[in-house]
């Protein structure tokens, strides 16, 4: 795979990686970065908030102004409004829902505050200056290929493939599922059953417990999220089932360790790196200071950056482990 940028690595372990004192990281004019994200009730989102804060801490010229994370759109709108009022220099927003926060983000742009949109995209391009995010569809595709290929190699026909989603009403979930189904189709496979587990460990246990009862023989499971995956694995262990393999999602350190140890059904996971938040802070700073990205030829920060989803297996787990987030 192509994209293992040093920048990402740096962002994930800011303390470890020395900050270059020249180029883009050299102190510039002081900028205030407003930050709004959903409530951190989940490992991945927690990692997002943490990475953003850590990245901001690296710079003496950045004042980081996070607002109350919330899962209520109405409140997130108010939060962003309050940041606009506070006249921050640049906004970094991971919306609960891109469509619903589009308007208020547009207001910010209209008020002259550039917005860096993280992950869940605003439908209106006038609503953000730059977007950085994971590739949800691609993540589904990666998982689909991993499962499809493994089963094909084993020579399984008509496999029972289960999919455990995160929150079903999120567009990102739907993108992931679409990618998964599309990739499986190339092998002539389909998803046998699909349930959502709200991104929590406990819900993962419950859904998996019931799914295992519904299907006496399973070939493969794709679980969208490694955090809820802990619960899924606990349910599998409790049921004493091991006739199938499982692919995770997001890429938590925990999952990577499991994969590396190869002790259970979890054989692979597809990444969705929360390091994007750190990158977003860096980009926001550059935008506010009117700089470009020094590795690129362009004078300005690109409009859109899509992170690739990687597939982590036993073979490359060691390499990725430092990038995994602790769930």
């Amino acid at each position: 795979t192509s994209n293992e940028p040093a920048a990402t690595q740096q962002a994930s372990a800011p303390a470890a990686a020395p900050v270059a004192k020249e180029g883009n990281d050299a102190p510039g004019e002081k900028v205030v970065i407003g930050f709004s994200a959903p409530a951190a009730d989940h490992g991945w989102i927690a990692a997002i908030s943490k990475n953003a804060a850590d990245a901001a801490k690296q710079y003496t010229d950045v004042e980081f102004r996070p607002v109350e994370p919330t899962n209520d759109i109405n409140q997130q709108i108010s939060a962003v409004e309050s940041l606009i009022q506070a006249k921050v220099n640049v906004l970094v927003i991971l919306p609960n829902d891109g469509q619903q926060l589009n308007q208020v983000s547009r207001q910010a742009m209209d008020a002259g505050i550039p917005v860096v949109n993280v992950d869940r995209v605003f439908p209106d391009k006038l609503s953000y200056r730059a977007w950085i995010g994971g590739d949800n569809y691609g993540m589904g595709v990666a998982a689909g290929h991993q499962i499809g290929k493994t089963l094909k190699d084993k020579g399984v026909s008509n496999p029972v493939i289960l999919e455990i989603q995160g929150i079903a009403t999120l567009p990102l979930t739907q993108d992931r599922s679409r990618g998964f189904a599309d990739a499986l189709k190339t092998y002539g496979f389909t998803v046998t059953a699909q349930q959502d587990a709200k991104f929590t460990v406990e819900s993962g246990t419950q859904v998996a417990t019931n799914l295992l009862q519904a299907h006496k023989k399973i070939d493969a499971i794709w679980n969208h999220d490694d955090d809820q995956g802990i619960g899924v694995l606990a349910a599998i262990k409790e049921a004493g089932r091991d006739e199938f393999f499982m692919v995770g999602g997001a890429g938590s350190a925990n999952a990577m360790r499991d994969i590396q140890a190869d002790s259970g059904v979890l054989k692979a996971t597809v990444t969705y790196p929360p390091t994007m938040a750190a990158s977003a802070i860096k980009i926001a700073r550059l935008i506010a200071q009117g700089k470009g990205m020094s590795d690129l030829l362009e004078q300005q920060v690109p409009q859109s950056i899509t992170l690739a989803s990687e597939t982590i297996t036993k073979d490359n787990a060691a390499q990725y482990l430092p990038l995994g987030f602790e769930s």
Partner: protein
Amino acid sequence: MTEVDQAAPARPRVKAAGPGGWLGRLGEVRHLGLVAALVLLAIVGLVTRPENFATASNLVSILALASTIGVITVGMTFVIIGGGIDLSVGALMALASVWATTLATQSYGPVVIIVCAVLVGTGAGLLNGILIAYGRMVPFIATLAMMVAGRGLAQRMSDQRTQLVQQDNSMIVSLSTTRVLGLPLLVYVFALVVLLGWLLLNRTTFGRRTYAVGGNPEAARLAGIDVRRHTLMLYALSGLCCGIAAVLIMARTTTGSSTHGDLYELDAIAAVIIGGTLLSGGRGTIIGAILGLLIFTVITNLFILNGLNTADQLIAKGAIIVAAVLLQRRTLKTPT
């Protein structure tokens, strides 16, 4: 209505003294307690964020945030005073917002969108009322079922996607963006609903009967009130408020979505109860409920301004709720 009418639950043994006796005073004190809590929060705001808190735009922001749930709270106040509870409000708001933003509905223009949201809300509220008043279901369960089914239906109608309000119907969105005298239109809608609700509760026979139905249904029946029909209407009223709130949330978010109004029921009920309405019915005020809601909203706003992290916010919020209530220290009868 006089303060005395809405005063605290009397201990059965305590007998009234003269005009404006201690009960009357307590009534005033109760709202005073809420106002005091608000003032305290405002002082905290002024001290911690002098440059942000008391700005006009921040106050507008607080009101705009309070509007949606505020409208729902008005309906909830009626239901709770009438001895019931409505857990379905958040789901009904979501359902109404989804129904009103389907492509089919949107093709008829903004007026139909608004009418649709209001009708869906009222209709679902009526269904609640039928289950409770005529199906004799416990309100908690009936509205819980409605909450669950309502969200499901909303998800199904929207195919679990967020539905944008289209350009043609931007009149809806202008409720949030157009300002009159510095306030977005939706704040006026909120104010109007509160005013009408207050009039209905305090100045009409419907309102007074609501207290009777909640406080002593048997007495209400013996006085010739059709308790069932009244109950039905209370839930329809709450549904109506959800419909109006759906319009406001569409305006604010420019979308209809099955995820709107998540846990609003809890916030609305909490606001009503902090405002001095008894969960057992028969007592309470709209003003108290709105004050309770404002307290919640200001708390949230203060957190935003001060940039607390989630964990600390939650801890602080819990502590503030306890403090606010102990501040108004009601002397209810033996607590349970």
